[in-house]
């Protein structure tokens, strides 16, 4: 319990440390996949890169710009803006991640000039804005949790099908599936502590650890398959 007490007492510093690790992982993934995209022009890689770009920005906004040390010197509007932007980028990250698995079904020969701005992506921006606005109006996180739970249920099913279809052993698809299931568990736990368990600190710490595991899994995969 000493470790837990230490974590609770130093939670603000630990949160910053946690965010720095995730932002760094996102940065590495974005740089490596950006290079791979420029060589391949593959749209799936492009959307995968965008997902981690949005996650990185989201974590930077919430845990660095929104760190207690900083926002205490600003008013409530500042913190509301931080929460709004954090949710928006996180939800968009989820949409980009699932779209990187599904783009072939929707785009066909359509080859957009920009992966950030075209009609299909505009639908995601719109949906993300709706989710964030509803959460802001009701002052909850439920709409974000609910949207992410749906996204990661679908992503887990797709990842499992990809894993089952692949006959070659030793492939990363198994880890991809595990990462999707872990993400789903993290969002379910988030919803659970928000709805029933009054933001239980122990479970919250567990969610941070699960999130780190997911990002490290992706980092492992990206480094493994982009090294020369």
């Amino acid at each position, binding site marked *: 319990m000493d470790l837990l007490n230490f974590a609770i007492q130093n939670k603000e510093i630990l949160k910053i440390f946690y965010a720095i690790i995730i932002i760094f992982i996102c940065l590495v993934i974005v740089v490596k996949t950006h290079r*791979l995209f*420029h*060589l*391949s*022009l*593959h749209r*799936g*890689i492009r*959307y*995968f890169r965008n997902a981690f770009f949005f996650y990185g920005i989201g974590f930077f906004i919430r845990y660095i710009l929104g760190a207690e040390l900083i926002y205490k010197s600003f008013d409530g509007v500042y913190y509301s803006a931080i929460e709004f932007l954090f949710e928006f980028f996180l939800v968009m990250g989820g949409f980009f991640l699932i779209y*990187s*698995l599904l783009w072939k079904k929707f785009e066909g020969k359509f*080859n957009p000039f920009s992966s950030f701005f075209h009609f299909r992506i505009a639908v995601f921006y719109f949906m993300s804005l709706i989710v964030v606005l509803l959460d802001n109006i009701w002052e909850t996180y439920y709409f974000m949790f609910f949207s992410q739970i749906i996204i990661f249920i679908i992503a887990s099913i*797709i*990842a499992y099908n*990809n894993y089952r279809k*692949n006959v070659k052993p030793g*492939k*990363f*698809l198994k880890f*991809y599936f595990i990462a999707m299931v872990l993400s789903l568990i993290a969002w379910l736990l988030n919803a659970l502590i928000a709805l029933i368990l009054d933001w239980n600190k122990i479970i919250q710490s567990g969610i941070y650890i699960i999130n780190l595991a997911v990002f490290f899994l992706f980092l492992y*995969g*990206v480094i493994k*398959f*982009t*090294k*020369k």
Partner: protein
Amino acid sequence: MAATKKRERLEVIRDIIKTINQNRKIKPTRLMFYSNLSPQMFKDYINELITKGFIKLEVGDDDKKFFSLTKKGQDFLIEYKSIENFIENFGL
């Protein structure tokens, strides 16, 4: 009758770039023949590859046009296996 699997976009790009690399300089008609694409598809792919800087269209001393690879095109061939592995392993 053996069914031929439709080539993925990335495989088409690889085949075009590989053909240019093997020939160093290749005429458009010859490249189209080797690429096994319809004229319209061939045009679309070539335009994209030129725009993105993978290949270039040059004019020889005899005023004949030919394609050659750029540095980016050569890098693509070197890293093709990594790209293919990445796409396969991430289910993209």
